[in-house]
């Protein structure tokens, strides 16, 4: 439960309105006290933050590479056109001056571009740095705040991957964590995905061209799949001549590695789009576009060093499995256990149960762990409660104990200690 703190500092509880400023971002000790695991555990858990640091870096790297490419291109263009000017003998003085002036203005343009690129690179480098600092800022004092931010980061990641961009934006803005999430990076994906949903491969192909070398390195077939789909669309429109020309130009180069798919798709020329032959019918299914969207997402995640699944799903699965015990599905399951809720139970259904090597006993009355400090005691009827709970009960009731589950009344002196290892 998230609770905004009461203002501190002025040690009074006055009703004067001047003292009522509340900071939205900070949460008090009252929130999530139970969920703030100890600091050493948290430091360990930082190992899970690869994506958090990797994504902004890949973004920066991409920008650096692109900026450098433009600079290189411009400089070499200038050098070569300068060579043209000097080499052409018939050039009049005026013409030479003119072309030199244009070279200079071209170089000035490059300089402007460089400065602009430098600014973006700086911003992106700053972001990488902010994230490193954020991982370092896990003070014990603000642990619950930090954990809370982590959950929000995980949620924003989920929103972005599921294309719930508005919610992602709103959550990031209202929690002031824009620097810690990758909304900007996903803008790039959004363009491609939106187009694919409209059956337009243009932006996706442009994206492939942009990332050609890296896609080639990972032996990605994504571009080929886009081309296949475009071919299919031409066949669907009964534009056979263009389809064949298209295939010659864009599909043939993939023949060496993907001959089988190539042959299969070429056969559609014979079958047409209304075919009932299952093998070819599927190629005309509009669902193929959804498949392309998924395919794109995987390529995109891979390029940016993101996990193939949303972080939320990964954590949710591990968490549900770790919490799942046969007792969770019983009617008297405590409501503090997430698995007492139907929706959580549904998700956990196909997952394995947790495994324990040691007994862990929770007192029915206080819900506290029973250990050597607070050992379990046995009533004559075999029911077990914590010493703490029973002592308190005995003190209030003249040494009498009432079993809350059976109503049995006995003396405190009748209890027996149980030793659990």
């Amino acid at each position: 439960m998230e609770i905004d703190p009461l203002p501190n500092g002025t040690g009074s509880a006055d009703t004067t309105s001047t003292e009522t400023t509340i900071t939205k971002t900070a949460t008090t000790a009252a929130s999530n006290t139970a969920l703030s695991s100890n600091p050493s555990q948290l430091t360990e858990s930082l190992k899970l933050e690869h994506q958090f640091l990797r994504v902004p870096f890949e973004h920066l790297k991409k920008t650096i590479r692109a900026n450098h490419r433009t600079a290189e291109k411009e400089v070499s263009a200038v050098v070569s056109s300068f060579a043209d000017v000097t080499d052409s003998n018939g050039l009049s003085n005026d013409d030479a001056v003119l072309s030199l002036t244009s070279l200079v203005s071209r170089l000035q343009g490059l300089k402007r571009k460089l400065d602009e690129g430098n600014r973006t690179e700086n911003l992106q480098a700053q972001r990488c740095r902010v994230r490193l600092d954020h991982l370092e800022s896990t003070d014990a004092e603000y642990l619950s705040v930090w954990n809370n931010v982590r959950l929000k980061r995980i949620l924003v990641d989920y929103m972005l991957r599921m294309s719930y961009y508005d919610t992602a934006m709103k959550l990031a803005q209202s929690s002031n964590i824009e620097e810690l999430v990758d909304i900007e990076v996903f803008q790039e994906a959004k363009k491609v995905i939106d187009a694919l949903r409209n059956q337009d491969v243009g932006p996706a192909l442009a994206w492939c061209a942009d990332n050609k070398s890296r896609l080639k390195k990972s032996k990605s077939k994504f571009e080929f799949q886009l081309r296949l789909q475009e071919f299919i669309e031409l066949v669907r429109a009964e534009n056979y001549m263009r389809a064949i020309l298209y295939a010659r130009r864009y599909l043939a180069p993939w023949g060496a590695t993907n001959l089988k798919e190539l042959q299969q798709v070429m056969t559609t020329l014979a079958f047409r789009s209304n075919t009932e032959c299952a093998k070819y019918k599927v190629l005309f299914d509009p669902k193929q576009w959804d498949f392309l969207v998924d395919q794109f997402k995987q390529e995109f995640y891979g390029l940016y060093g993101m996990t193939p699944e949303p972080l939320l799903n990964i954590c949710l699965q591990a968490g549900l499995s770790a919490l799942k015990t046969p007792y969770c599905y019983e009617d008297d399951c405590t409501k503090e256990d997430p698995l007492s809720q139907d929706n959580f139970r549904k998700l956990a259904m196909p997952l394995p149960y947790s495994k324990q090597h040691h007994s862990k006993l929770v007192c029915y009355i206080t819900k506290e762990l029973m250990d050597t400090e607070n050992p379990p005691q046995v009533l004559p009827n075999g029911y077990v409660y914590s010493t703490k709970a029973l002592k308190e009960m005995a003190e209030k009731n003249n040494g009498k104990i009432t079993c809350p589950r059976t109503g049995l009344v006995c003396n405190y002196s009748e209890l027996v200690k149980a030793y659990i290892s």
Partner: protein
Amino acid sequence: MELHCLKDSFERVKKKRKVSYSKTHEVTELIVQEIEMVQSSTLEYKSKLAELKKKLQEVAPLSQLEGTQKKLNIALSKYPKALEKVLNPDISKAYRNVEFDSRVVNQLIASHFYRQWLFDVGDCFIVEAQDVDAAATMKSLFQELYQMLEVMKCWDLEPALKWAAANSNKLKENGSDLQLILHRLQFLKILKKGSRDEALKYARTNFVSFAGNHMAKIQNLMGCLLYPDRLHDSPYAHLLSLTNWDTVTEELTRQFCNLLGQSYESPLSVTIAAGIQALLPLLKFMTVMAGKKHEWQSMKQLPVPVDLGKEFQFHSIFVCPVSKEQSTDDNPPMLMSCGHVLCKQSINKMSNNGSKSFKCPYCPTDINSKHCRQLIF
């Protein structure tokens, strides 16, 4: 965690990037200068051009850029390698390929937003995700609590007092003294304003019903009346501490959730926090078991014990120290006469189905299996 070495590695990237940028800038500037020099001298144009050409060849702008770029590239490839070494490069290795129903997941998230009073975000999400309207009921449930806590930030206890009065029977049933501690804050608030009469009047009307169970606390409060103007340096100064407000906020939230039949913590927060603790041992196991993925997909129980913090223990789990198996209805935990506990099956085995006595594995006591008692946790 070697965060500092990641930092160093990244600083190198930053430095090399800067060098590369200023080099490109410098080279461009140089070319511009050279050309401008030619332009400014209209005399002997041809020979100047030739000179410029030679100079440009000497400058060799492209190879200059190459040098700094190469260094930057090295830094750029080192940083991700450091990341992969220090951090776990792919946490999805611990993921079983079980498809979650995204509608269910979305409902969990929407409820979570409303529970955390992110009403705007929740509303936005419901529109965007569709089909999660069921979660909107959470909004109306939690709005009341939110309003109570909002005004408490301005030291206004009225709505909370009203709610507590309306639910006073249920609160008493749960053994919560929320109503009293709310009244206490209100009483102190009045007293601090300096009106002792009013405070006394307030005490008379409101404290009487608690006299039965909380006499000591009320006596304590009445003592405050002696120090209306200088409560802060009286023996009762601790009552003014702001932590009292935090305590009340927490208790109010707890009781409110309780009466709604909701958990105190957001279940999504709990699950994700548990998941983060569980991922590390699971990932460790996966690296050991690399290549045997299939087994992992079909198992009924996690392959490794995952020790979650005590805040995640909701159920009593008894593991027999002899058989290492968890107890079940058919194989319940049994208390032996010495106070040690084993599972029924282990006792049966050691006593040869009750036909002989045996020695407790933990102490020298002779155990007769007929005198063992079943335990219920």
